[in-house]
């Protein structure tokens, strides 16, 4: 290693399309995630839901033949258990392929006819593309000269059999005679499909005047040539009967955008739904999408029938799988993140030998407990009254009592100052003699729930930013999102490289990064994520302004809450039925949740039987707003109307609260 490298410089090693980069994928991919999404590697259609950066593309990339071949060549076990590994993958990216350009140019001058035929041409294009990709995948395996891999997958290496399957498919009635005269082998079939695809693309780009009669008269039914292709491959003995064919549909959610320009998005989505509705065991589809981009009640093209979870397809929610629930032991994300961290360091040439702890812990250390953390904010053993914050009405001997406590335990003194302000607890102001051990000292949960707000108030009174560091806090800030985790690591490593540029350190030794340097990196990452809300793909400054507005409301409420009665006011909650009666607000909040700006979850109301939904900022945004990320106690209870007011004010104030 000539220069110290940031192992996280490139964020998208496993997320990206991997042609030519499959070796990097093999090095960077954590197999630990596979066990949580096994449905992807079993027959049946799957809708894989998740936030941007949750790992959808990473998982779907495992279906690609290049990935499989790379694993085989690098002699690394393919991460899918062998009983589920007999499959070939194919797919279409609706954006890259140009499928989304359908409707750009009318196929017919009569608008009624055009409305009818456009989805049919769109379906035909998809059929051609996927059939081409299925045959290309088979050929890719055969041409890889890896006989044992073909055996493992269940592919016959005899290329004559593929020609036979192609001949049979070309002669199949599903093409309505398109291939009648010119398909003698697989390459002929592929060439015919390429020609047809190129004609569609040329038509969209206005390079040809019309779709030739031969194609007009042989439009295929969506999905049928695909299942026929798989059937002929099986019948001809190219793939064994047990081999599954999984077809990826990428960028499904982007079709919705088309509605803004040519009203075909929803119809094209219905065409895709029809593929899933075919429920043909010969081929299974995989659709990656954001949670709210998948319609709750999707209909199929040309029929009123609907597709349903658990009947026509299975929905896998990656965010749900990776998210932390009540029981920390069932939280899968830390193991995956730790593994990815080690893999990144290893592939960047760092020497990982001789370290007993996990690499993540070795580099970042453990996060500090509240008592340790407070020492980072306040170094003196004689803290000023300003940090404890007395009330004017309090007797001086009570103030002195807190001052004494503060000399050894400032956190306890600040909690005491809140205790004396709380309803029903202020009796301590009158109680004499004052108790030797403070009453809040024994209230384990009361204290635990208030440590974050107490630390936030102390840091603020001492004019400091909250600091984040250590393994536990980094994982928490990642919000169980792999991209957020990598982004935090990238910025921390960058901050370390800047800090250490003149230090003499063997280039390959793994650093242990100081708390202060980590904190700088975390702040930088947080700022970048805040900026991204407005200026990344699908960025929206309305969302950014609302997030800023919320962040400032939360900050102000938490800082002003001297009694610490509401330590959960870094989130807000709305009754579900109230929300449902305000669809525009619900839609806006869903969008924020869908892009990961807010994290939403159901919660139990303090009013018995009431169903509510609550939202917090994405934890990675907490450092930007100087708000703790821990969710404790009750969030702010508001009506949807209030949220509407916030949205309105955020839009017209640039996201600034009146105080902000």
């Amino acid at each position, binding site marked *: 290693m000539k220069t110290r490298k940031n192992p996280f*410089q*490139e*964020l*998208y090693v496993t*997320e*990206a*399309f*991997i*042609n*030519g*980069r499959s070796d990097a994928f093999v090095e960077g991919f954590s197999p630990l995630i596979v066990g949580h999404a096994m449905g992807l590697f079993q027959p049946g259609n799957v809708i894989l839901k998740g936030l941007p950066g949750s790992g959808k593309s990473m998982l779907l990339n495992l279906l690609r033949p290049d990935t499989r071949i790379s694993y085989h060549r690098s002699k690394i076990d393919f991460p899918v258990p062998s009983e589920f590994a007999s499959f070939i993958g194919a797919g279409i*990216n609706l*954006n*890259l392929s*140009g499928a*989304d*350009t359908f409707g*750009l*140019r*009318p196929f017919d001058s009569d608008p009624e006819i055009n409305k009818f035929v456009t989805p049919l041409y769109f379906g035909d294009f998809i059929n051609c593309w996927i059939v*081409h990709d299925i045959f290309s995948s088979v050929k890719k395996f055969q041409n890889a000269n890896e006989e044992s891999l073909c055996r493992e997958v269940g592919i016959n290496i005899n290329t004559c059999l593929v020609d036979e399957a192609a001949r049979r498919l070309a002669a199949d009635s599903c093409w309505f005679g398109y291939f009648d005269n010119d398909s003698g082998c697989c390459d002929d079939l592929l060439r015919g499909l*390429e020609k047809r*695809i*190129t004609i569609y*693309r*040329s038509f*969209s*780009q*206005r*390079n040809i005047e019309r779709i030739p009669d031969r194609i007009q008269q042989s439009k295929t039914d969506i999905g049928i040539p695909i299942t026929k292709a798989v059937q002929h491959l099986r019948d001809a003995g190219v793939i064994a009967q047990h081999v599954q064919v999984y077809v990826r549909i990428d*960028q499904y959610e*982007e079709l919705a*955008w088309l509605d*803004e*320009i*040519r009203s075909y998005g929803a119809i094209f989505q219905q065409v895709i739904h029809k593929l899933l509705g075919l429920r043909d065991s010969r081929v299974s589809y995989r659709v990656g999408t954001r949670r709210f981009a998948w319609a709750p009640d999707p209909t199929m093209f040309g029929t009123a029938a609907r597709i349903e979870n658990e009947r026509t397809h299975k929905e896998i929610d990656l965010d749900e799988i990776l998210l932390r629930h009540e029981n920390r032991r069932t939280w899968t994300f830390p193991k995956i993140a730790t593994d990815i961290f080690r893999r990144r360091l290893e592939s960047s040439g760092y020497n990982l030998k001789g370290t007993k702890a996990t690499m993540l812990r070795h580099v970042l250390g453990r996060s500090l407990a509240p008592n340790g953390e407070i020492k980072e904010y306040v170094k003196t053993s004689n803290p000023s009254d300003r940090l404890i914050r007395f009330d004017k009405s309090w007797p001086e001997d009570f103030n002195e009592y807190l001052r004494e406590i503060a000399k050894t335990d400032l956190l306890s003194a600040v909690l005491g100052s809140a205790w004396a302000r709380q309803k029903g607890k202020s009796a301590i102001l009158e109680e004499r003699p004052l108790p030797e051990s403070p009453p809040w000292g024994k209230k384990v949960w009361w204290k635990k729930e208030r440590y974050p707000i107490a630390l936030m108030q102390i840091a603020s009174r001492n004019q400091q930013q909250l600091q984040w560091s250590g393994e536990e806090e980094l994982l928490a800030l990642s919000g169980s999102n792999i991209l957020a985790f990598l*982004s935090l690591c*990238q910025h921390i490593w960058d901050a370390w490289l800047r800090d250490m540029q003149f230090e003499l350190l063997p280039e390959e030794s793994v650093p242990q990064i100081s708390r202060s340097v980590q904190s700088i990196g975390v702040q930088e990452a947080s700022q*970048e994520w805040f900026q991204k809300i*407005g*200026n*990344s*793909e*699908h*960025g*929206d*400054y*309305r969302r950014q302004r609302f997030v800023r507005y919320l962040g400032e409301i939360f900050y102000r409420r938490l800082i002003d809450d001297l009694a610490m009665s509401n330590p959960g006011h870094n989130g807000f909650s709305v009754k579900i039925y109230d929300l449902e009666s305000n669809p525009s607000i619900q839609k806006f909040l869903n969008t924020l949740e869908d892009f990961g700006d807010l994290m939403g979850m159901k919660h139990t109301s303090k009013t018995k039987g009431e169903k509510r939904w609550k939202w917090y900022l994405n934890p990675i945004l907490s450092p930007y707003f100087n708000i703790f990320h821990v969710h404790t106690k009750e969030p702010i209870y508001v009506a949807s109307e209030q949220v509407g007011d916030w949205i309105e004010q955020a*839009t*017209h104030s640039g996201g600034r609260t009146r105080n902000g």
Partner: protein
Amino acid sequence: MDNSAKYRPWGRLREVINNIGRDKFFFYGCLSTEDRCVGALSELEKMGAIGGVSLVEIADIPSEYSESAAAKRYVNEKRFEEIGFGSALIEKIDLLDSEEKVFRWVEECIPRSSKVILDISSLPKRFFFAAVKILLRDPRVEDLIVVYSLPTRYYGGNLAERPSDWRALPLFGPQQYPDPKYDLAVVGVGFLPFGLPELLKSGFMEAKPHLFFPFPASPATYTKTWDFVRQIESSLSLNAEDQLAQVNAIDPSDTFDHINWLTDNGRLSALFAPYGPKPMSLGMAVYAAITGSPVFYTQPRVYHPDYSTGIKIGGDGHPLIYAYCLKLDGRDIYMVEKK
């Protein structure tokens, strides 16, 4: 032949028009919220060089700016009338309207003159790329001049909002199948890289990114453009030595030559992401139109009503409006001649 040695006439509007010796042009422009949108038209009218006009008035999607944007467009409509033209010459098309409407707007005016001026100062890329391609390849257009007015200043906040996902600009989508392996991804550096990292990671990883950095840049734009580079770099490793080139911000010919040089006169395949200044984007549009290369962009849905103000005045006291000849006497000025 070395393309860089070719003479491609461009310069200040008045000089170019006087030097090429033509009289009346058909003028395509855009009625927008910007003062500069009628700047070139006003100059040309004073020179007596206008033989016909069609402006397209483009409304963004409804937003908190709609009202103020409509008011600003109204002010410019009045200016248009003061120059001597009626509102009947204004075609209304929404920013995200069907591409067909855009094509029709351009194509329907072609029979009206073989001499055409296209003012791209305020035309969104979704419109001007398609217009350049249609006008370039239509043999009825014998003289094609593109004009561009520099504003006095740009708005200091967010210039554009709510980008769409990245997709090919109309008429600049991929055509061949299977898709060729793209050797280069040429990126014009601008203010906001809306979704560009996603584009580069999503399917064209094999294409080596090359960033064209506009030069010279004013101090105000300099920070924004470097911030753009920094944002790209946080997703992709870049080698400043061979992946970052400084390109003349007002000379499309320079952009065109850089592309020719990078692609070895079209031998290597390239895709484009035009986020930089309009003249730089024009260079990309011309190259991509000639070679059939794809162009991808994340079209914003909303532009700030104060996107820019004024028209910059040069040291000679005249507005800084540039003209670029793309076709003269039916002859293409820009060509890619493969070795």
